[in-house]
């Protein structure tokens, strides 16, 4: 493929014999290929190195965190035990997993329903209303941030005594769909063949049955992408965690990590315990890396299609 795109052959500048010319082209190509792969490998190394650095630093004693050795001089896995005891990380992991699961499942179902409503049915102003859906994607979150907080606290969903210890606002907004996923799922639904649904309708299937029994299974790949993307986003969320999760027993892992940075990092006063910060950072990141390797193909294919109709 690159053979056809990279080299240029001026047609009338040949002093060389045909065979020599071919050989020179081939040489040039292999050199280019080699250079290309060298660059790719170098970039891969740059992208992977911080992970390796982080994991390796998490096994080092305090004084060696910055020594930049890949294999720790002194192996100190106790860091994990120390940080586990210094902060309720088990609790935070549980909260994060719960919130992430609820956020991903609810946004997938609700966005699927809405996307289907905008694809299968024809109604007045459908495309105009869908235009509004798309426009909300551009809306900066800060404009709605404060009133949303007031709504959640107004209906008694904020604070330690609220339902789910006040964790509801972290995910319950997803029950109402999300513009990005509605758009993505609609793109997928549009590609499904219409006759399948016609046939089902003639057989007497209702709207709900057609969605649930036919469209939903057919669109499973798109739903998995939605689940994975939202799991990623929900796990990472910090700003909302800072606003809504007021008691440390309700924190998510990223919220907890932010407090560990404040407590054990340079700003905490006294000597910085970077080895604990690093260890907590590994604990925060690891679940997502595992998630990525489970859904690797869906992630990579999914992200590629997001720009497809941009």
């Amino acid at each position, binding site marked *: 493929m690159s053979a056809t795109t990279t080299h240029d052959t001026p047609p009338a500048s040949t002093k060389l014999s045909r065979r020599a010319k071919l050989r020179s082209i081939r040489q040039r190509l292999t050199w280019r290929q080699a250079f290309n792969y060298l660059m790719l490998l170098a970039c891969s190394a740059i*992208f992977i190195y911080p992970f390796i*650095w982080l994991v390796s630093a998490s096994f080092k004693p305090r004084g060696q965190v910055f020594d930049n050795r890949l294999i720790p001089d002194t192996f100190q896995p106790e860091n994990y035990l120390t940080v586990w005891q210094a902060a309720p990380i088990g609790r935070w992991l549980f909260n994060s997993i719960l919130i992430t699961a609820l956020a991903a499942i609810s946004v997938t179902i609700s966005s699927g329903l809405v996307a289907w409503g905008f694809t299968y049915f024809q109604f007045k102003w459908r495309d105009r209303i869908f235009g509004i859906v798309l426009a909300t994607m551009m809306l900066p979150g800060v404009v709605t941030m404060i009133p949303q907080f007031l709504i959640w606290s107004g209906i008694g969903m904020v604070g330690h005594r609220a339902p789910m210890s006040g964790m509801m606002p972290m995910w319950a907004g997803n029950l109402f769909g999300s513009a990005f996923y509605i758009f993505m799922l609609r793109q997928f639904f549009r590609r499904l063949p219409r006759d399948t649904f016609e046939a089902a309708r003639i057989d007497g299937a209702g709207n709900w049955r057609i969605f649930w029994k036919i469209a939903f299974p057919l669109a499973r790949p798109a739903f998995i992408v939605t689940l994975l993307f939202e799991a990623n986003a929900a796990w990472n969320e*910090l700003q909302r965690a800072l606003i809504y999760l007021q008691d440390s027993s309700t924190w998510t892992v990223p919220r907890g990590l932010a407090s560990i940075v404040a407590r054990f990092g340079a700003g905490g006063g006294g000597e910085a315990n970077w080895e604990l910060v690093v260890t907590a950072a590994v604990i925060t990141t690891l679940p997502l890396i595992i998630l990525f390797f489970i859904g690797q193909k869906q992630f990579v294919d999914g992200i590629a299609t997001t720009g497809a109709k941009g």
Partner: protein
Amino acid sequence: MSVSTIEGVPGVSPGTPVSPEKRRLRLTTKRRNLIAAMLFISPWLFGFLVFTVWPMIYSFYLSLTNFDNINAPRFVGLENYQRMMEDPRIPRTLSNTFQFAIMSVPLSLIVALLLALLLHKATMGTGFFRTTFFLPRMTPPVAVGVLFLLLFNGHQGLINQLLGLFGVNGPNWTVDPFWVRPGLVLMSLWTVGGTSLILLAALKDVPKELYESARVDGAGALRQFWSVTLPLISPQIFFVFIVNTIGALQTFSEAYTAFFGGGADAFRNEGALFYSIHLFEMAFRNFRMGYASAMAWVLFVIIMIITGIQWAVSKRMVFYSGDS
């Protein structure tokens, strides 16, 4: 009809003669379909009204009041906007944010495009490379903030040790208010993998015949890139350009984690005090929610203007490429 995708009214086939009873039946079917459609989109409709429209109206109202989340909002007119003009932190945080966006958006686009081109030319091991490029995008921004503090540490950080190998005395990235933004930009380049994959998909969609004919016309590699590749992937370039700009103008988590999570003053770095961080602290640390709402509306208007300009420019550019 049999090959058409899901558009149009379900259950209605064109061309069939309609008897009066059938017409009545069809009307009710139509109405039933409308009700069903509304039921399907009702979650979004409800969420849109309650969590978008109402908050926008209310946030504008709040911006005209003093509100501390305890006492009822007190109407003060445009006072908050006036105070914003006098607050030296507003221009400073805006400037911090713009400097970050102006550096990070084009730079990450260029790096993402270069990576996509490298990936596009490769024939073996593409799966491996795509994985390694994308993996950093999975890292929580909080952890990216931690990595920034460690890798860019002025004395012992990896970046300055590498620079030291070339005899360069690296700046104090995490402390110096001038260097903290370039540092955060460099750190943000680590997560360009997602953008790269979007552009890679666009590159793959460029028809190969176009390169063939360009080569017949005597176009070199660079010329082919400029005249064939770039115009054809311009829709995706503008898409990520707009999305990344909106994201960069609201950047929050990395810098917040690194410099503002603790509240200890020595720890803060005013050079990394971005507009969203200042707004968040105003609203949820100082509980000046009226003032913060005014700040939010100013950012909203700025983002709308910038996005509008980008749309206008992008429309002309994309059309231009399709025309020539």
